């Protein structure tokens, strides 16, 4: 029997049972060595009516690294967002939560709209965004070369690592009094606090990005005649760009989290100021609207940066 199924084309649909028979054949060989041969036909007969499919297909929704269509993913994302909004809305409408403390999304959105129309919310958002970008740009301009130098030259790394690691763990709010003493209550303090929150983190991330550039790339570069400076700019920097970009995107997000701290320091503009001022009058719907505005700006920025990443690094 086994020889017969191996030669010539098997009848359609027979492949599965053929495989199982082949497997059983192996089993019988093992058995045959243990006991006598006549057991073989019995084992074969028992295995023929196997079901065509052994296991039902896995549910892709919860399969580890399963495949889910883009459409299904978008629908899931919209669905979950709507679900959260619905629960939020209903819990205040049904009186489970006092709307004074947690205004429902409908009120929040309405307030947001009113603030755009009558309270210059867009101007405040613009000022906040500007502050973030100025501080962030300063942090990037300083952190990228310093981070690269730290991981490229052992001397620089040894000199800076303890300082950076120390400051990195200082909570930004703890430095508010000092920064007021140093810079007063103007723009400088705000930029300084935002810069403080990102720069030291960024330095270490940049250093790490450079450290992860494969040694092979460096050696290829040297063995085709690059000088160290050429290797650094043409290869090492180029190789780290995708992960650097990713880290910039993430730290930009962190920058926003320090905004409130920076803008409650005697500010009269910015989203942080708006939120803080509304809090003083227990105007929770304006507080929520301000928070939502920050969230929306973050969401949009992040999506734009992801798209840019995709465009810039098509080769990945």
């Amino acid at each position, binding site marked *: 029997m086994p020889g017969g199924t191996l030669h010539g084309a098997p009848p359609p649909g027979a492949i599965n049972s053929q495989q199982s028979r082949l497997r059983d054949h192996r089993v019988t060989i093992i058995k045959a060595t243990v006991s006598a041969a006549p057991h073989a036909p019995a084992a074969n007969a028992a295995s023929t009516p196997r079901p065509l499919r052994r296991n039902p297909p896995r549910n892709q929704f919860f399969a580890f690294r399963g495949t889910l269509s883009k459409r299904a993913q978008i629908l899931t994302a919209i669905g979950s967002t709507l679900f959260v909004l619905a629960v939020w809305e209903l819990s205040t409408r049904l009186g489970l939560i006092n709307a004074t403390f947690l205004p429902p999304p409908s009120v929040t959105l309405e307030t947001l709209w009113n603030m755009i129309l009558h309270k210059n919310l867009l101007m405040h958002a613009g000022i906040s965004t500007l502050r973030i970008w100025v501080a962030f740009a300063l942090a990037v301009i300083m952190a990228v070369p310093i981070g690269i130098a730290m991981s490229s030259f052992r001397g620089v790394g040894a000199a800076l690592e303890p300082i950076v690691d120390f400051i990195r763990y200082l909570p930004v709010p703890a430095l508010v009094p000092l920064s007021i003493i140093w810079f007063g209550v103007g723009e400088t303090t705000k930029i300084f606090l935002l810069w403080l929150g990102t720069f030291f983190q960024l330095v270490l991330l940049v250093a790490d990005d450079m450290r992860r550039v*494969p040694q*092979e*790339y460096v*050696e*290829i570069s*040297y*063995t*085709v*005649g*690059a*000088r160290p400076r*050429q290797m650094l700019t*043409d*290869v090492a920097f*180029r*190789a780290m*760009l995708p992960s650097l970009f990713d880290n910039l995107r993430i730290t930009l997000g962190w920058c926003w989290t320090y905004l409130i701290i920076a803008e409650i320091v005697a500010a009269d503009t910015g989203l942080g100021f708006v939120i803080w001022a509304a809090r003083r009058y227990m105007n929770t719907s304006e507080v929520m609207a301000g928070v939502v505005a920050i969230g929306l700006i973050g969401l949009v920025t992040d999506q734009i940066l992801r798209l840019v990443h995709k465009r810039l*690094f*098509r*080769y*990945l």
Partner: protein
Amino acid sequence: MAPAPYLVFDGVAKYFGDLEVVAPFFNLTIKRNEFVVFLGPSGSGKTTLMRMVGGLETPSVGEIRLDGLPIGAPDRERGMVFQSYSSFPWLTVSENVAYGMKYRHDMTPERKKKRLDHYLELVGLTDFADFYPNKVSGGMRQRIAIARTLAAGSEVLLMDEPFGALDAQRREGLQLELRRIHRQDAKTIIFVTHDVDEAVFLADRIVVFSKRPARMLEDVDISAELGPDRTIALRDSEQFFKLRTRILRMVRAATGEEEKV
């Protein structure tokens, strides 16, 4: 008259801290255009010896001379082909090959273009010139690396298990191609591998290494037995088989496997 020594290892030893990687004293003389395979167990220090030729490591003791001059910092005279990360993902196939000539100011752009086309053709990548490396096979990526070092004008090719990550068919194809390239575009090649079959097929000469610290156990002249031409047919010949078995025994002896069998 015997050809002048080209690449000379003169009383070399290498330590990484307390770790002895190359045992004192390693001596070897390689002729110009010789295809030498360093064969030995993984982690035996043969790669370190090859990297010293590249200028990527310096000998703790002794000296390595190329054409009479001691080897210093890496340059394009000695090109490297690695097993992985052998090409830059952000450059296309042709840009990767052209990178080999990026720092050559002794060539006009026209001449660079001609060389680029020539070497793309030589390794059979002309049709894939505008692809990014992630869109071509692992074998093609290794060919990119070979073409790049050739384009750079490297006189010595240092290859560190370049075909290690490839499947058997691609490996065989690339081995044939490498032999052809070696004959066509005469270069001195040091090829590190732990694959006996690959070593015998490729080499003019095999140097068999011990376990770490690396010591030369045997120095076998393969060309004397198989000649310079390597074809697929040769692979199936009894002559090849016998030689392979002989070398395999040497490697087993080197790793101490013989006693266990």
